[in-house]
């Protein structure tokens, strides 16, 4: 039951129309309808929320204003603050970030026989990977193929992705699932071993593999266990705050900061992989976020300051179904799998207002339109929201389906007295994913030699919109590739000499010349939520 009586009353209207709504197969929008909808209601199209960069590689391009401030922020240190001649850590491959991509990279680098080391500002596994609920895509069924997956991903991203990256993503997907399965990751299977797969928004085949609605957690905890089994050093509560270059401008390590003692440390490495994840905690346009506490765009800042370019940093994914109510879980992710299993989106009048499995950008824009222009949203103390009719899942598939397939969702709402098997839930878009990021080539290399990027911090794989289940896939495929490629490169080179942080002053000068030197210090590392 909802604590607000009015909501219980409105929920009855949803229940009354459930049987009729369950039978509906809402029409999908045409390409033109989608374009018009996005332009009018998607947050990426709100021009006054963006700032054109005045300095750095992407000078002249627009990015969200909060990100611009950090990209054009000043370093936490000056070059004199550390002694680069006496590194505290020496390794072949330095991996910044302990999420799905970082852990995958570490395992592959270790497998290749070089020394790998992970630094992470929180703990290994504190990452968006851990929170991915719905699943991971791979075209491994007889009615599917990597070519169909290619068309879904490329089209869903508005034909903007780099084709060679999409090809890499889809052709290595089945191998990625097999690799995970061999590490011991559990997937939902039929008794004969056939994968239980569902649709995601914008998929044309049912290729979403899952481990209940703990898919990312199951993958992440297994990768973490494997990293620890291999004895790969994990330096936790230690953030990278600057990339170190050698005299030829190649990446050669990072300056680290102990998050608790603030002690500065130097790590020297032959190659460096940035795997720091996304930026939801910057709360672009004031949106709540489904992201991890540490999702503050650090990797974009680290890379940009040493000359690695960004691609599509102006496109963000607002997950259509963030929790709209209650306040304790406002903005928390309600997995797309809820819609994959058959729940529909319903407005205040109990009407199904769209096909529930359009791509995420289209669905988010459609919900925003329902709550604004059309005035069909449900008013809560936190703002407007629409219904997601979860009881429809059991109406269609029988009792027990919710507990078996989406236990985390049942638990999350159950803690606040809402039984999603019996009551519909309230949802509104939440800031979920950074579609763009550091521009990478198919080998995961950035514009800076010996500097690699993988996972959410990288851009170009998903174009301007990512499909559900392609992010867990991306962190595994590109994380592994980054580890292999960075290791191969490290094998053939000597330990870098003449380390330098000269880029800090150079970038400061550029900011000053452009007239944008301010007081903001970056990378941000953690959001500031303490009440002042």
């Amino acid at each position, binding site marked *: 039951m909802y604590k607000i009586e009015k909501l219980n009353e409105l929920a009855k209207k949803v229940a009354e129309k459930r049987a009729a709504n369950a039978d509906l197969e809402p029409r999908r929008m045409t390409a033109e309808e989608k374009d018009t909808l996005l332009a009018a209601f998607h947050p990426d199209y709100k021009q006054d929320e963006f700032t054109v960069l005045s300095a750095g590689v992407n000078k002249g391009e627009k990015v969200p204003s909060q990100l611009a401030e950090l990209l054009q922020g000043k370093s936490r240190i000056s070059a004199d603050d550390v002694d680069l001649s006496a590194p505290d850590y020496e390794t072949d491959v330095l991996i910044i970030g302990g999420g799905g991509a970082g852990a995958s990279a570490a395992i592959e680098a270790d497998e290749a026989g070089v020394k790998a080391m992970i630094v992470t500002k929180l703990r290994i596994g504190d990452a968006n990977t851990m929170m991915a609920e719905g699943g991971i895509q791979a075209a491994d069924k007889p009615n599917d193929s990597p070519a169909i997956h*290619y068309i879904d991903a490329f089209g869903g991203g508005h034909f903007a992705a780099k084709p060679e990256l999409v090809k890499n993503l889809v052709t290595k997907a089945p191998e990625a699932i097999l690799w995970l399965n061999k590490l011991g990751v559990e997937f939902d299977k039929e008794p004969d071993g056939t994968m239980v797969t569902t649709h995601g928004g914008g998929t044309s085949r049912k290729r979403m593999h899952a481990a209940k609605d703990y898919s990312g957690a199951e993958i992440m905890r297994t990768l973490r266990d494997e990293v620890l089994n291999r004895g790969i050093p994990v330096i936790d509560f230690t953030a990278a705050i600057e990339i170190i270059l050698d005299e030829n401008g190649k990446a050669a390590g990072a300056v680290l900061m102990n998050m608790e003692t603030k002690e500065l440390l130097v790590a020297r490495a032959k190659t460096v992989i940035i795997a720091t994840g996304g930026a939801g905690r910057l709360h672009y346009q004031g949106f709540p976020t489904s992201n991890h506490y540490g999702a503050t765009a650090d990797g974009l800042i680290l890379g940009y300051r040493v000359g690695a370019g960004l691609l599509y940093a102006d496109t963000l994914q607002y997950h259509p179904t963030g929790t709209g109510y209650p306040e304790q*879980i406002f903005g928390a992710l309600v997995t797309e799998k809820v819609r994959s299993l058959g729940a529909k989106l319903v407005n205040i009048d109990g009407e199904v207002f769209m096909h529930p499995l359009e791509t995420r950008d289209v669905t988010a824009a459609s919900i925003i339109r329902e709550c604004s222009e059309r005035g069909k949203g449900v008013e809560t103390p936190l703002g407007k929201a629409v219904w997601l009719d979860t009881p429809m899942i059991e109406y269609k598939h029988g009792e027990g389906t919710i507990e078996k397939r989406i236990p985390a969702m049942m638990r999350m709402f159950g803690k606040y007295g809402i039984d999603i098997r019996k009551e519909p839930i309230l949802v509104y878009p939440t800031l979920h994913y950074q579609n763009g990021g550091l521009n990478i080539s198919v080998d995961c290399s950035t514009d800076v030699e010996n500097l690699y990027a993988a996972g959410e911090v990288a851009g170009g794989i998903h174009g301007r919109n990512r499909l559900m289940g392609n992010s867990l896939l991306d962190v595994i495929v590109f994380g592994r590739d980054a580890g292999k490629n960075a290791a191969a490169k490290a094998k053939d080179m000597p330990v870098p000499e003449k380390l330098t942080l000269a880029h800090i002053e150079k970038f400061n000068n550029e900011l000053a010349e452009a007239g944008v030197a301010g007081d903001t210090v970056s990378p941000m590392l953690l959001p500031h939520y303490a009440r002042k």
Partner: protein
Amino acid sequence: MDNMVNVYLFGKKYSVPAGLTIMTAMEYAGYELVRGCGCRNGFCGACATIYRIKGQQQLNACLACQTEVQEGMYVATLPFFPLVKQVYNIENIKPTEQIMMQLYPEIYACIGCNACTKACTQELNVMQYIAYAQRGEYEKCAEESFDCVMCGVCSSRCPAGISHPQVAMLARRLNGKYLAPECGHLKDRVKEINDGTFEELIESLMQKPIDEIKELYNTREIEK
């Protein structure tokens, strides 16, 4: 202000708005969290917390990000607990009873007090999954422990010194790798890809003019 409640963070009293979680109440009180805060969504286990309501005997455990504050709540967070994780090579072990005896023999010292189950922040039947592990029933152990976020509160309450989350982790990996049925269509597809079956087709898609691929996308057949 209306609707304020008194909470005691590490024993110190703060007045915070009702409706906050323990985590947001700490931030309201002025804490800048570094430890004890992770996904903020109930998946990572970083914010294990123990509390007792003033005047009551019962000691409760929860995740700070998933629990609403109550009047008179005495809160102690448990941002780290020294679990024992044994190291093994997943390729070289077998899903037999012996592997548990070898790696986590302390599970056989379980006295059946059920404190682990009572303490579980995910309301799992922890003692039951340990019993399954003792008997080498890894499939059952994996299923029973599946929603574990490895926060470690169970282990903090265990008189036998068991690291329950790590036992369950091993069981799930054994189950996922060795016991769950193998997926035939997955192996077949990997082989097809390695044989280059789709190479030409995908290359041709990559070369197509944008209008052609748009047409392909907009008219593609969608499986029901």
